[in-house]
């Protein structure tokens, strides 16, 4: 009997999904540690001119500052703001605190980013009432962490996320099934999570400004204009989103990249940097018991032209193999003789596993060396021991 009931609920899309989003997360964390920042415009991000805004307070937003904006521009717009370098480690710690509180209480949650969580609360109304439960959770988080948090509660992830956007700052918004369309209709299409600057302009040029207009478009036309994305956007405008709340998603790749303070042409220095990057990532793979079979090297030139080159290799997590591949790819890729702005390396196609030793290529001493180096790093930190080739 219970089964039947649940099935019919699923059919009508009678789900309840809660979207929790910490308000101006980085700024809130900074304010926790420094009360004098309250009520003032605060901008967090890389402090050099080449950095971008990672987060900003509502006071700063009034000046037109938004995240991902170049720092240089933010300074021009809001010179009286307090600029803070940001401490990712501290943010991660606070984020984990919030996740922990959610994990203790929620039946099924998904950590979508450092400051966002989705919780599937379907069926909970029978016992607690979804809205009451969500309110209590929010109050607990605010009480225990001191961080302001907003939520949207609706029938699926997309509508909940849009609802959170409307609830901010520090508010809540409940959009039950029958209220979905009236809620979405008057909003700007910009509020749909998939629509960025380019899509927005494209749709505006077609005369589409509100979600109400967007959802009345024929889906075939949307597909013609934007391909598969068009159909997805159309579905979202109609409040349709069947994507489940996924508890855990496996890391598919490990990567790192570095933007230089100044565009550079110092190739030996970049090669040393790549050696250090590979060493760090390979150590991380060995710790997580992962092996890679695809190496990608990325170069962004001073004019923002970005090139990547990748190569499939037999599964490995050994630095010496990965370094050779990475440097060979880099040398093959760097052909333009102009300054480089950014280099990066990515290991993908990861599988769980440990290195199968090769009798002709891996000397037993080398395997012993990796074991010894990894022991040192685990005990004294990842920088305890490094390859000389990564340094001058």
């Amino acid at each position, binding site marked *: 009997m219970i089964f039947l009931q649940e099935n019919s609920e699923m059919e009508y899309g009678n789900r309840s999904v809660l979207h929790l989003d910490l308000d101006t997360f980085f700024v809130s964390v900074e304010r926790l540690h420094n009360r004098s920042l309250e009520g003032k415009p605060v901008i967090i991000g890389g402090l050099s001119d080449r950095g971008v805004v990672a987060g900003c307070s509502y006071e700063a937003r009034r000046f037109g500052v938004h995240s991902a904006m170049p720092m240089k521009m933010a300074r021009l717009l809001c010179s009286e703001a307090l600029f803070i370098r940001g401490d990712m480690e501290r943010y991660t710690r606070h984020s984990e605190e919030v996740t922990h509180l959610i994990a203790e209480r929620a039946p099924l949650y998904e950590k979508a980013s450092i400051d966002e969580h989705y919780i599937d609360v379907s069926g909970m109304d029978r016992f607690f009432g979804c809205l009451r439960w969500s309110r209590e959770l929010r109050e607990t988080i605010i009480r225990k962490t001191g961080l302001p948090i907003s939520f949207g509660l609706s029938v699926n992830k997309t509508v909940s996320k849009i609802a959170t956007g409307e609830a901010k700052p520090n508010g809540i918004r409940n959009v039950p099934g029958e209220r979905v369309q009236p809620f979405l209709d008057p909003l700007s299409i910009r509020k749909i999570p998939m629509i960025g600057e380019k899509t927005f302009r494209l749709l505006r040029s077609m005369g589409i400004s509100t979600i109400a207009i967007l959802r009345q478009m024929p889906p075939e036309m949307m597909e013609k204009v934007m391909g598969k994305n068009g159909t997805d956007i159309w579905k979202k405008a109609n409040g349709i989103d069947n994507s489940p709340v996924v508890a855990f998603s496996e890391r598919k790749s490990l990567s790192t990249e570095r933007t230089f303070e100044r565009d550079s042409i110092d190739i030996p220095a970049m090669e040393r940097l790549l050696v250090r990057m590979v060493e760090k990532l390979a150590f991380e793979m*060995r710790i997580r*018991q992962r*092996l890679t079979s695809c190496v990608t090297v990325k170069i962004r030139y001073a004019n923002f032209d970005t090139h990547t080159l990748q190569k499939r290799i037999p599964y490995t997590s050994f630095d010496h193999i990965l370094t050779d591949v990475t440097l060979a790819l880099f040398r093959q890729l760097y052909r333009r003789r102009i300054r480089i702005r950014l280099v990066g390396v990515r290991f993908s196609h990861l*599988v*769980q*596993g*440990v*290195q*199968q*030793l*090769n*009798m*002709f*290529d*891996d000397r*037993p001493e080398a*395997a*012993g060396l*990796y*074991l010894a180096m*990894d022991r040192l790093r685990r005990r004294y930190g990842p920088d305890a021991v490094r390859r000389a080739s990564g340094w001058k």
Partner: protein
Amino acid sequence: MKFVVSSTDLLGHLQAVSRVISSKNSLPILDNFLFSLQDHSLEITASDLESTLITVMNLENATDTGSIAIPAKILIDTLKEFPELPLTFEINLSTLSVVISSENGKFTIVGQKGSDFPQIPVIKKEQKSELTLSPDLLLSGISKTIFATADDELRPVMNGILMEMTPEHVTFVASDAHKLVRYRRTDGKAETGSSFILPKKPAALLKNILSRQEEDVKVEFDERNAYFGLSQYRLICRLVEGNYPSYNSVIPTNNPNKLIVNRQQFYNTLKRVSVYSNQASNLVKLQLTGNQMTISAQDIDFSISAYERLQCQYEGDEMEIGFKSVFLIEILSNLSSEEVSLELSDPTRAGIIVPAQTEVEEEDVLMLLMPMMINN
């Protein structure tokens, strides 16, 4: 050209040689069998340019000489459906028509010119080495080693079996750099030292036809090709060019930790425990203490794990070593002794697996397996 042949007899020969024909041929003519009739002997040839297999049938009722290429698939498909009965082949070499007549019917096929079939390479006289080997030696040598060959496009030498002949013994070696098998026989000898690398495909073909061979096999080779002469078949194949890695240097000589265990028990235990290993890595751990070996595996992603203890004779230090279970299982299934001996030095060096008892006096089998790097 005309001959009478038994349907099942012909089918048997065709099926054996048809294994040469590859599904993706570069030359359309290679989808054919070459039939060459001379006196009362019918030669049937199939080739993929790398390997060529020839079988000979002696026929009582045959006239004329000549050669023609006949499509392989249609011929085999036809013959498969016949009971044992005599078939008459009438071939018109000018129109290339092939008419097969049975008691009740006629089947007409169009062939291609025999002269269009690629030339079969010959072993160069001036570089030729030759020796004679017993079919049993050759068959065991291939069967025991072929599973360890690699599939590595970048290192073609590893995709074959190394055959080394010396005045003392004949050695077969195969390795994919993770596992290695060295199979040595003292009952096979050559006058001088020489070696060649036999690719996997002709090795498998040879394995198939050797099981029915009783007389000694004549082996001839030069730098590029090898020839194997059996009573009913002749195999000519291109050899892998290049140098085989020096396998002797990777066989560790100082292995203080020695374990003797019942092979079948070890095999069965591994089969059970490896179900619980991670499907990508297949890692199983062997923990050796006293007279006990603990075999364990786990897959963190699915929260499953297993271990099993096995009695054994162990002399050496306490140690833990990881192996890929599929490799270890393959190795154990390619040994036949009741007990096996596992010789180890440390968790980053190769383990040697040999039969604990010698079964055949002339035989010396050694299998080597590289461990997986476990980090505790």
